[in-house]
């Protein structure tokens, strides 16, 4: 595929696999091995199970707030899988599938949502930034990382995520503009899950889609069926190759749907109809990929069941390994503000410790 052939002004989603698991564009189908095909499936399932279990832990009062990814697995896994190991991933906060592809241990992910500081620690060798809570602010970092790759003459590409809501922030604009002006090797992936908490797309922008916002920056934009893992992979891969080749940034809109709540603090029945959700359940990205794999003879109900069982056990055992054992050390609150702790902080730490010890 070439990005040129997919003008976002046409408002047509780029799609390879339709919602019934049928391949529409044989010529664009990525040339994956069977192992790769199964890895992608397993990763989406893993993501789904991590979400579902977290939600159930949360309902049981064993987990804090949690933001599920259900329905967005293809957008995440498909885009991240197009990255090389040395490429940088800059997340917003709803990219579980991408994190898994990048190799972040589930333990960290659960620690994060469990409220422990170490959840944001990325093991050496994984080029992924921690969650960025202030919406869209992370896009600036992505552009900066990519500009640095250029300056250093390195070939790494950066992939950054943002939500549909995030496109309204000034930082979205500035990051894309800088990226285009400096031809930075960065791909911006908008996960358009159609809601920013309760706010619908029509209240977020008056443009027909988000991909076309690329035009304002003189960069290519492509509107993709975000529930089609092949299309997401292919579009991202094309953009990454282009970036690595010195041709600059690309904006990708993954048109998808948030099947769950915004977070566990949110009640979506207050602002959207069940019928809408039902309609989208039909377009579940895992469903269509599952059919594809079954048609291809790679997946059977049995394999599916045993894979899920295995993953469920893994998830449960990791959660149990952190549950009730993850309070933050007092020192840990102070230790990471500066390379050398200033006397003020040391004094406050010591005063507090001596209070706890009942001393003066």
């Amino acid at each position, binding site marked *: 595929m070439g990005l040129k052939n997919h003008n976002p002004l046409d408002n047509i989603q780029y799609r390879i696999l339709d919602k019934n698991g049928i391949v529409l564009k044989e010529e664009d189908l990525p040339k994956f091995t069977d192992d790769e095909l199964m890895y992608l499936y397993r990763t989406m399932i893993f993501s789904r199970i991590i979400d579902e279990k977290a939600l159930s832990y949360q309902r049981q009062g064993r987990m804090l*707030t949690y933001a599920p990814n259900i329905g967005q697995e293809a957008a995440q896994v498909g885009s991240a899988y197009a990255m090389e190991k040395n490429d940088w991933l800059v997340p917003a906060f709803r990219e579980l599938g991408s994190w898994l592809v990048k190799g972040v241990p589930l333990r960290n992910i659960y620690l994060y949502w469990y409220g422990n500081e170490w959840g944001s620690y990325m093991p050496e060798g994984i080029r992924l930034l921690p969650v960025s809570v202030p919406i869209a602010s992370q896009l600036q970092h992505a552009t900066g990382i990519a500009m640095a790759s250029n300056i250093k003459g390195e070939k790494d590409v950066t992939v950054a995520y943002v939500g549909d*809501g995030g496109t309204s922030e*000034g930082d979205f604009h500035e990051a894309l503009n800088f990226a285009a002006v400096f031809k930075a090797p960065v791909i911006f992936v908008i996960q358009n899950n159609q809601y920013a*908490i309760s706010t619908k797309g029509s209240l977020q922008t008056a443009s027909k889609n988000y991909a076309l916002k690329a035009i304002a920056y003189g960069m290519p934009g492509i509107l993709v069926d975000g529930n089609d893992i092949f299309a997401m992979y292919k579009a991202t891969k094309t953009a990454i190759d282009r970036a690595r080749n010195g041709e600059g940034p690309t904006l990708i809109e993954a048109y998808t749907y948030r099947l769950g709540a915004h977070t566990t603090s949110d009640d979506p029945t207050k602002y959207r109809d069940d019928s809408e959700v039902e309609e989208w359940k039909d377009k579940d990205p895992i469903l269509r990929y599952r059919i594809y794999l079954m048609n291809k003879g790679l997946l059977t109900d049995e394999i599916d069941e045993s894979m899920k069982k295995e993953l469920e056990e893994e998830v449960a055992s990791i959660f149990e390994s952190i549950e009730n054992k993850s309070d933050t050390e007092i020192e840990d609150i102070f230790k990471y503000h500066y390379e050398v702790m200033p006397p003020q*902080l040391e004094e406050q730490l010591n005063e507090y410790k001596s*209070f706890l010890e009942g001393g003066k």
Partner: protein
Amino acid sequence: MANTLNIVQAINQALMNEMELDNTVVVYGEDVGVEGGVFRATVELQKKFGNTRVFDSPLAESAIVGTAIGMAINGLKPVVEMQFSGFVYPAFNQIISHVARMRNRSRGRYTLPMVIRAPYGGGIRALEHHSESMEALFAHIPGLKIVIPSTPYDAKGLLIAAIRDPDPVLFWEPKRIYRAFKQEVPEEAYEIPLGKAKIIDEGTDITIVTWGAMVRDVQKAAEMVKAKGIKPEIIDLRTIAPMDRDSFVESVKKTGRILVVHEAPKTLGVGAEIISIVNEKAFLYLEAPPTRLTGFDTTFPLPRGEQHYIPSPERIAKTIEDVVNY
């Protein structure tokens, strides 16, 4: 007529009252319309007043505050919400460069009767950026007012006063106690004047100045030390800027001792200003070093560490004793 409300309900009622009384009041922000706000502070408003006066905005704080400036110039009284006070920073330029300065710049021609509301403070086991107490940043900026209520009754009266104020007001709501307790609150609109602190407990041994969610922790600590014969005078500052200096200066002249308790980091927290004022106005009355008990000079920790950050009633009580026994 009165009813029994918690803080978030009192805020909701204040908005209801003022929107009814003054049709130039408009309410908007992220998720405040259809959903009624993530903390439900604006619930039912859109149903009652329609989506011309109560509406959801795109996700952009600078625009929320910046358009409110324009609306205020053009005859409306916008009351906008920042979803959390930790997300006001994209709007910081609008606040420091324009909200604080439009009256002065235009020599009084363009005034900004607007309110920026935000849930603020820690202790609700939240993600990063959802727990900070950064009121000092705004209190340092000439031209701003910042108000922090501590009870449902005050919340309603202060918010109504803020909406009616001819100048812009930042209204920071202590979300830790949004639903912590209820109080009798008159159904109709009433004002509590901005810029006036409140002595909530009279005493002779030490002056304690605090505000927001810390008020209740200080009250608990006061009960502990009262058992030991110490009589603290507790002042709820309520308006952080411009500050009611007389309230604590007069009190210190009586007690000779002062402790400021706040959640915000110590360095350049509002406590620093209070202590400096006491030095300037009541130096000769001081019998012990004016003291601060505050959050650490660190980022507010994530939930599994947050119990360490906010001064507990026990720590407050211990500090009161230390100052009194100096």
